[in-house]
């Protein structure tokens, strides 16, 4: 594992230098948007509102926070209780000095706190507003609750995954949260360009639900044109054969192999040292291999089963056959390929404790990925991981111009905590 910085070009200025963003909301998607904007050079100020901590401060549960740098690094983090009048006023002050205001609270919650978008616009007429919700800010479900891992069911993806006689196929993560988190910076940057060119601003409404459905793919058209629901084919594919995962030596080890045409099939046969079974006429064409896929899978599995998956991947790739190990955590952590690209970097984290002030949390050592868009001309900042409230003095003092005495009074009143 390397600690070489991705921001080695820190001398030149970052793409979004000069842009200030207020981020107001917990969980995965919105904080990821903030992290991406921050890594591109925007100054992102994360406002944490109530005395109830974001549950995400504790993820993964076994580490109490080692996963948090992924969502929070590269931001200024301040504490503010927006349920107080003074807190709400400070929030509006923050909006006044910022280009972008983004939040993921539902309308009824924002209303309760007296934070509304027209007021933000009065404070800052050219503010770009990004309003993200789970199911939609308007419409019949606007008060409904959701969370990311279940949105793969809601958005139609789980019934495309697996086989028809199995339960809906699921990836064990907050699925569409990530789609939303990466869609949103695109919308925000575009809105900033549009503002600079036309003087016009925009409020963009996004939802986790829509993000999931937007990425359903051609199945959306197939149903409308052919009246056909998505085919659940496991790892099979109409356009490639063989196409699947095959067992290798070791526990829960597999290699994926995808052969799209007869030329690749020939290369694959050569890589297998041309066994007699592979010369069977039924395997000569892709259609033939499709028709006999079960027998083909069994024969390939017999060949892969005793082999080391990583070596086999190298052998097949060297022969021009698309193949990849099904990576486990160790493979990713130790990957020479990913290390040479500085993909994972060492970082610190704060071990969260309930009922203990964040300033007293213990610092630990963790690992974090870098934004997977390598820019040759502008730095991607890896970014410091501030603790909750660590940047109060900078934001309230340096940016908003409050005196130390005024900040102390707000702290005493529980507005800043």
């Amino acid at each position, binding site marked *: *594992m390397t600690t070489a910085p991705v921001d080695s070009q820190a001398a030149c200025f970052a*793409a979004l230098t000069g842009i200030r963003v207020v981020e107001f909301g917990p969980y995965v998607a919105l904080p990821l948007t903030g992290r991406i904007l921050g890594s*591109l050079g925007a100054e992102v100020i994360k406002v944490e509102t109530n005395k109830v901590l974001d549950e995400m401060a504790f*993820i*993964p549960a*076994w580490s109490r926070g080692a996963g948090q740098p992924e969502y929070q690094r590269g931001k200024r983090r301040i504490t503010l209780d927006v349920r107080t009048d003074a807190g709400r006023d400070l929030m509006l002050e923050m909006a006044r000095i910022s280009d972008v205001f983004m939040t993921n609270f539902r309308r009824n919650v924002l209303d309760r706190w007296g934070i509304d978008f027209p007021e933000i616009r009065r404070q800052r007429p050219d503010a770009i507003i990004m309003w993200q919700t789970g199911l*939609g800010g308007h*419409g019949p*479900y606007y008060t409904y*609750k959701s969370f990311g891992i*279940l949105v793969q069911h*809601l958005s139609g*993806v*789980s*019934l*495309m*995954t*697996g086989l028809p006689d199995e*339960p809906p*196929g*699921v990836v*064990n993560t907050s699925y569409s949260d*990530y789609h939303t988190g990466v*869609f949103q*910076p695109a*919308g925000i*940057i575009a809105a900033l*360009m*549009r503002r600079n*060119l036309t003087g016009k*601003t*925009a409020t963009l*409404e*996004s939802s986790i639900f829509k993000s999931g*459905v937007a*990425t359903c793919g051609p*199945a*959306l058209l*197939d149903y409308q*044109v052919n009246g056909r629901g998505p085919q659940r084919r496991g790892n099979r*594919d109409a356009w490639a054969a063989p196409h699947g*995962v095959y067992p290798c030596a070791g526990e829960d080890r597999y290699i*994926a192999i995808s052969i799209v045409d007869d030329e690749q099939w020939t290369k694959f046969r050569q890589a297998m040292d041309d066994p007699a079974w592979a010369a069977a006429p039924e395997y000569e064409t892709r259609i033939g291999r499709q028709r006999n896929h079960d027998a083909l899978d069994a024969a390939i599995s017999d060949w892969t089963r005793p082999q080391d998956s990583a070596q086999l991947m190298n052998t097949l790739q060297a022969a*021009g056959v698309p193949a*990849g190990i*099904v*990576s*486990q955590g160790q*493979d*990713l952590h130790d990957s*020479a*390929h*990913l290390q040479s*690209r500085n993909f994972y970097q060492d970082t610190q984290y704060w071990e969260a404790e309930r009922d203990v002030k964040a300033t007293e949390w213990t610092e630990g050592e*963790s690992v974090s*990925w870098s934004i*997977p868009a*390598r*820019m040759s001309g*502008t730095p991607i900042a890896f970014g410091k991981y501030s603790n909750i409230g660590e940047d109060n003095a900078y934001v309230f003092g340096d940016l908003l111009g409050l005196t130390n005495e005024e900040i102390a009074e707000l702290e005493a009143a529980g507005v800043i905590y």
Partner: protein
Amino acid sequence: MPRFDDYTGENLIPPYRILDLTDRRAAFCARLLADYGADVVKVEPPGGDPSRRLGPYPADSPNTERSLDFMFYNTNKLSITLDLDSESGRALFRRLAADADVIIESYDRHYLYDRGIGFDALRADNPGLIMASVTPFGCTGEWADYRGDDLVVMAASGYMQITGEPDEPPVRQGNEHSHYPAAQYAAVGILAALYHRDFGDGTGQHIDVSSQEALITYYTDAHPALLWRKLGQNVTRVGTNSTLVIPLGAYPCKDGWIAAGVITPREWDSLAEWIHEVTGNDEVLSETYRGGNQDRAEHIDIITALFLEFAENFTVQELFHEGQRRNLVFLPVNEVADLLADPQLAESGFWYDIEHDDPAVGTVKYPLGIFHSEEVQARRHPAPILGADNAAVYQGELGLTADELAALKAGGVI
């Protein structure tokens, strides 16, 4: 600052000229930019983009103008044909690139360089040029020349390792999910680079996006590298029902599946009371099961059984709305048909109709992407027919004569 004579902000993205040299690995990137206003020209080989020869097709009848796959990934783009293997084709490409803002490509990393039209060569004529390359494993590193499609990238990223049932092999997510993360990150990178060029220092740059890396970031909850470093464990598949949040997953009911998740103690109390109302079973109210997920973890089997007995009394829609009324995260497990009929999506301005001239396709709803705004419009044009814009681009923009165009056609260049 760029000059766009006609841009008044109707679309979110100014009409930047983007040359799209992608296959399905990154076609969604160019589509996203085109849907929101960019002027995207898909540069296809004379035989057409390979995805035109991928189904599904209307009535399963193959036709390069009717691939639903191509239609989905290429809305709002123009199409020109150009043979990059011919010298005259490359000369035309250099002229197009000299006036382009962005090139998006997903060839292997040597393809354009071998033809003398790599980023460095093109930038010599256009210092503001931005190029994004989306490849399976990135443009550098020891796997840079490795091949990968959706299945291989889903495997190598580890995404498959946590998808599917625990006692079965890893399974691919059925929406070809690996095509989206890299495309989305490329779009972010391109827009940031344009912002920097036009409102910063005026220069272009190259953006390297690895589909493997992008997909790794899309399951950060599980964070396999972190789990390995801290605990020496590997993440694996847990099936439809989570073992961390209890209950959480998809459960059969009268007419389909309901997805449900209970996290807070309050939510559990609300669910237990409802189950009791319906089944009369007192056991569900037991103190044993109250509290947070940790308190229920060892009782997962009995809780799942109680939930199944309860859920079978209802339809999906009954559980969804009554569950939400009771402050529970209940959501339907939808099929495509349900999505097209969903009232929330309809009211969010999510779908838009495209009327295809081809009666075999007809009027079809497309997803508008995720941003809804009263202040900007998305564009609503169908994917182009092959070479539809050859005359407009080669004659109208590059100033070729009709005879020259005809000669290029005859020579197989376009």
